[in-house]
């Protein structure tokens, strides 16, 4: 990194606090003073922030319906599944449309 290497390393340790808005006012001011003259650290902050935002928008994998059925069968809860969802083999394609019904059924 830049010639002021020790300072850059100090700043680096606190960057997550800074981008998460969890740093104290005093620390924020210190970091921003440093960023004002350190191009390298500015790049790190900007790309770190972008990295975090990319992961925040990453789609979450859904639990397969056949796993829910498998769990229900394991714990002998089949009677709580809607009849049309009780199948012997995984068939996720047909179950996708019925996810909400399955979710609500055990509470009824």
């Amino acid at each position: 990194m830049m010639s002021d290497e020790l300072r850059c390393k100090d700043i680096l340790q606190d960057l997550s606090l800074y981008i998460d808005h969890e740093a104290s006012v005093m620390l924020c001011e210190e970091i921003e003073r440093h960023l004002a003259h350190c191009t390298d650290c500015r790049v790190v902050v900007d790309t770190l922030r972008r990295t975090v935002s990319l992961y925040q928008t990453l789609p979450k994998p859904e639990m397969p319906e056949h796993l829910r059925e498998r769990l229900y069968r394991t714990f002998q809860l089949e009677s709580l599944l809607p009849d049309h969802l009780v199948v012997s083999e995984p068939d996720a394609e047909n179950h996708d449309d019925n996810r909400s019904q399955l979710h609500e059924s055990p509470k009824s």
Partner: protein
Amino acid sequence: MNDLLQEQTLLQRIRAGDKAACAECIDLHGPGLYRLALRLVHDDKDAEDLVQETFLQAFQAIQHFEGRSELRTWLYRITYNAAMMRFRGQQATVSVDEALEESGTVIPQQLTDWCCLPEPEFQTDEVRVQIEQAIRELPETLRAVFVLRQLEGVSTQEAAETLNVSVEVVKQRLHRARLWLRERLSDYFVERI
């Protein structure tokens, strides 16, 4: 009814053998446990096995669950420990020395700004594959913290309880994971400037 009371009620019903309560627990916590398991082991079938193992252990031990942590935290912890035991063949604990070793900072090597890339460049399937692949390549201890804190949105305290480490270690690992991923994604995006 607040969340704590709802959880206490659910626990009482499960302990009393209420099947509907077990089903509610599966529906409520299964998806999160599956996502955690999948990120830890990277295999659909293994992740499914881990979720089943988690609920088996949890329902068997539910009478002994004292409620010192949230139910979700306890379940996450069972999944994490099961994953570590199953795929590492060793205790899922981190020694003090190991934790101290982790306290070093990832020094940024990539210092090119790729944030200027057009927005569509970040929205492609190829980018999503890169982002997912980078998680897989994260060192194991960093990955668990990153998945819990960044992807599942659990609190620092809850992540610490799940992984049986201090709050400070969670903060350090999350920061190191982010820096590590920034480096990894920078390698990819810089090529596209």
